């Protein structure tokens, strides 16, 4: 089974299992084994559904089926943190100002 390894690695990270990607196809009985060394990845589909995957193979399977970890949430997440950082800059500025005032 062909997989777009670049796309998979973008969502799932690198394949550290040392095993090749198995041919799962549409087998409904295939059971994904949990990999305790794999940090759980949350994937999203185009409809906004969410799923957690617990092994690289499982993650690769879903990404190959159109799921992704990036669905615009990355941008939202970064902007939230940028806003928090801006508040911290403001807080630091006030702290410095108060400190300078105290010294005068």
């Amino acid at each position: 089974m062909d997989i777009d390894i670049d796309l998979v690695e973008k969502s799932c990270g690198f394949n550290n299992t040392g095993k090749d990607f198995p041919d799962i196809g549409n087998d409904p009985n295939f059971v994904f084994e949990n990999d305790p060394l794999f940090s759980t990845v949350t994937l999203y589909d185009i409809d906004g559904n969410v799923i957690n995957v617990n092994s690289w193979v499982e993650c690769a399977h879903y990404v190959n089926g159109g799921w992704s970890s990036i669905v615009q949430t990355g941008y939202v997440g970064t902007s939230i943190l940028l806003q928090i950082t801006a508040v911290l800059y403001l807080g630091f500025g006030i702290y410095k100002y108060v400190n300078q005032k105290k010294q005068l």
Partner: protein
Amino acid sequence: MNKNIVLLSLLLIVIVIPFTLHDSNDSFDALVLSDTTVRNYQSTTCEISLSEFYLKNRTKELNIYFNNNDYADVNCYGKITGVDKVGNSYFVSIGTNSSANIILQSIIWFIAFMAIPKSKKFTKFSIIPVLILPFILILQFVGEERFYRNNNILFDNVIDVNNYYFLLTFLNLLLICAVFNELLTYRFNEIINYIPFLFLITGTYTGSNLNIYFILGALLGLHQITISALNSEKIFSYADYIYFVFSIFWVNNTSSSNYYFDTDKLRGFINSSSTTTSKIYWILMFYLFAKGIFYFLNQSRNSLNFSKIKNSFLITGSLVVIFGYFGASSPIINFFNMIFFGQNKRGMKVFSSIEGNTWRGFSPSAESIGEFFGFIIIFYLVFLLEKKIKLSFTDLLFFIPITYGLYRSNNFAVAVSIFVLVIFLYYKYYLTTSLKRFLSNKYTIITILLFFLGIGFYYLNNDYQYLSTELLYEATLHHDFFSFENNYKNYLSVEQKMIERDLKTLLALDDNYLKASSTYLMLVNVFTQSINIPLIPNIVAVLSIVSLYINRTEMWGIFIAKHNPDLLEGYFGYGPLQLNEYLFEHKIRLDVPKNELLGLFLPHSSLLDVLIFSGFAGLGLLIFVFLKTLKISLINYSTTKYLLIFLLINMLKSDSILYLNSFILLLFTYKLTKHQDIVETNS
């Protein structure tokens, strides 16, 4: 209100809030965890906060482990991102986005930093290093792409104006440097008395290969350069020029292979990738860090207050034991220990040595924390006797957890070192003059020495063949010389050649010569040389005997099999904090149980670590510097020489130099010894 109470309350608020935030009007409620509700948690991700979950599942009957999911997005921070059942345990993943961690943990540690009292003298630092350092730090995010891509969903290394991830990271690093500059102004001279707290607050950012002390050290290094430049003083010393020459070799020798090391317990103080950018980053940062630490120790040594630092040691040692115990007993505390203290590996789950290293989390290895506990005891003993400080009841109380901590660390070498030192100090301070005179008599010393030499010679003579070859034998086993599937068959084939002392034939067989590491070839050459001076043992034989007596034969054998530098790398090493080539370049088949094959095999000697980083040239220079310091301190009878000797001896058989806090402790002790020599020589 007391300043420390305010800071502590602030700390609690900062750490608790991100894990309690949730939409109380949503339809997602935390459920009692069971096999049937696991699926609910799996389909309802990033909605239920840790606090909601914990309030519903506080019972001890549930075997829960809170896993940190650093990869998760920001909207999942502090919330459940998944639950899995593995065996009888439930693995509950909590979103802990790596970028958000940089913000949260910096706030926590800066608040803790503010607890250090302001000194009367204040030092004004230039803004220039604050503006330079973030540009150097951001190099890491370019060079260690594999590490960060695996650990942060937000990671994006496309050089583009719309790359907000880089902008965010840069702004945070700039703010960290600016806040440090501000805090240092009033506390620079006081920090030295709180150095032991490095062993409690490890300072490694969760999900990043960054450590706050590493940043602080580098900032101070840049400050020193700036101050020297602004005052038109000499900026670089001979040591700097030597480092620059080494750096040229290190950068030129960067491997073209794309090795990746997940950093494991060394996170925050090791290069994860073998790219040129990351190598330049670590070479530059290590230089600035070491320069900064030396600058700091030189400038603030006069502010060292032995009573304060003694208290810091006692409090830190005790708190490591107390929080380690709580972390092992409670999964939620175990989770918060990691965030709060910046542990580079999760703390032990169960309070038993079988479960891995005791005090794991607070220390990467049981050896290094054992050395720390031992250091505290020796520090106290030495100053109790030499500085005539009074032994207080409170101090005695602190020794209960510290001694227990040492006992649980199973560090036999530290226990022996303490025992020997106690005997020495007893001899020095409490023996009667006549007995002392008798023991100091040169004939008595010669008799005792001859007695021990005789015993040693007897044992060596009886088993010399075995003792002298065991190290090479172990190294041979870890090579892929005989490619039988069966390890035992390989073992017998190697054993036969070892019995015949026929290593050269073994190397000549098949393509064994190509399979052997360069270190192994060199040692075989030295061991099988034709020149044999009677009564002078071969250096490899001596190493072998030492390794057996200190239980390092297997680890050093693995090192010999793995370490495969070319000529230049042999002389200059791979560069500071570079283990990729050592770990991955030379393929060997380790003769260890299958379940251990994926483990991290470090050399188990700080000397060997230095050899990997800086080659024979660097190792030679370092030994020269330490011997010079020790020679002067032994002549001058400086008090701290015992501490330096203790650390150096123990580091011979541990990798402690690879751990940031142990490394700083060594530099601190070295500077302390050197400084005391100057003081005592002058007086």
